């Protein structure tokens, strides 16, 4: 559901950046999406395509390249960094509770590849 709002902002942002660079068409959009941003990639793409097509946007038909970032934790006792294991935030070595060091909440456009 919320992918529609995100997709709308994404079309706006990409269009704006492409126009600023006087590009004719957007070929690729490179995105950083955190696991905790609760974004379904297929849903985001579907909404993006619908909105871009509806507007006949220069970003119409652009492909996504997505890098995902996880939520990260550190165990200070073991000096181990780890991701969520079995839905818990416990160190895989000593099973003590870790401390969050990375939220994994990114929703960012890194770059766009455009055609002239």
């Amino acid at each position, binding site marked *: 559901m919320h992918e529609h709002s995100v997709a709308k902002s994404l079309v706006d942002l990409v269009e704006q950046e492409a126009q600023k660079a006087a590009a004719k068409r957007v*070929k690729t959009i490179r995105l950083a999406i955190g696991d905790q941003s609760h974004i379904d990639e297929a849903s985001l793409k579907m909404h993006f395509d619908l909105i871009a097509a509806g507007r006949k946007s220069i970003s119409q038909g652009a492909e996504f390249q997505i890098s995902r970032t996880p939520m990260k934790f550190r165990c200070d006792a073991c000096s181990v960094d780890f991701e969520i294991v079995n839905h818990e935030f416990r160190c895989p070595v000593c099973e003590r509770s870790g401390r969050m060091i990375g939220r994994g909440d990114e929703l960012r*456009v890194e770059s766009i590849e455009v055609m002239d």
Partner: protein
Amino acid sequence: MSTRTIKVIKDILESNDLIAAENRSKFENAGALAINIIGSPGSGKTSLILQTIKALQHKKKIGVIEGDVAGDIDTKRVLAGGAEDAVQINTGGNCHLEARMVRQAMQNINLNALDIIFIENVGNLICPNHWSLGEAIKLCLISVAEGDDKPIKYPEIFAASDVIVLTKNDLIAHVDFNKEFFYESLRALNPTAPLLEISSRTGDGIQGWSGWLVDQCAQKRKS
């Protein structure tokens, strides 16, 4: 046709954040402490607001922006409960409030007359977290009836909140809520946010919560 890469490095929701920054300035200039309340449907968001209004009667003027998919039941409730002012946003299906909706609602509320403004988000622990509204404090409300596993299931909202309120504490004997388990996962995600335990039904803990809120108003004024 030649291709080239343009560096962007911008948050997708940047346009929302810009409006949120405008809202924040307006709240601050008016001296109104804005609190974005995020919690599940039925967790007790409106009840918390009603109890706070009651506890701070004659001390703080409280306004409310109510966000719901449909209906204005909550706006009527908080006005009947003594809110200085209240305005309803109906999202018409959208699962969260956005800064532009709050900006519009702010036109219908006299911020200068308020000390505190609650923005009750749509009941949801997921996406409301991503849309800043310009609030000074992001509050996550969780009730014991929802279960002790919520920080594990919805880690991001617990990690991102400035304060966490655990409510329906009077039901603890009737539900399987392991406080130790809850605290452990919560503290891994957010070691510093204050956690206040309350019951809106019995009034237990409301004094501590409203005292904390008054302190926040005073700190805001100083800064």
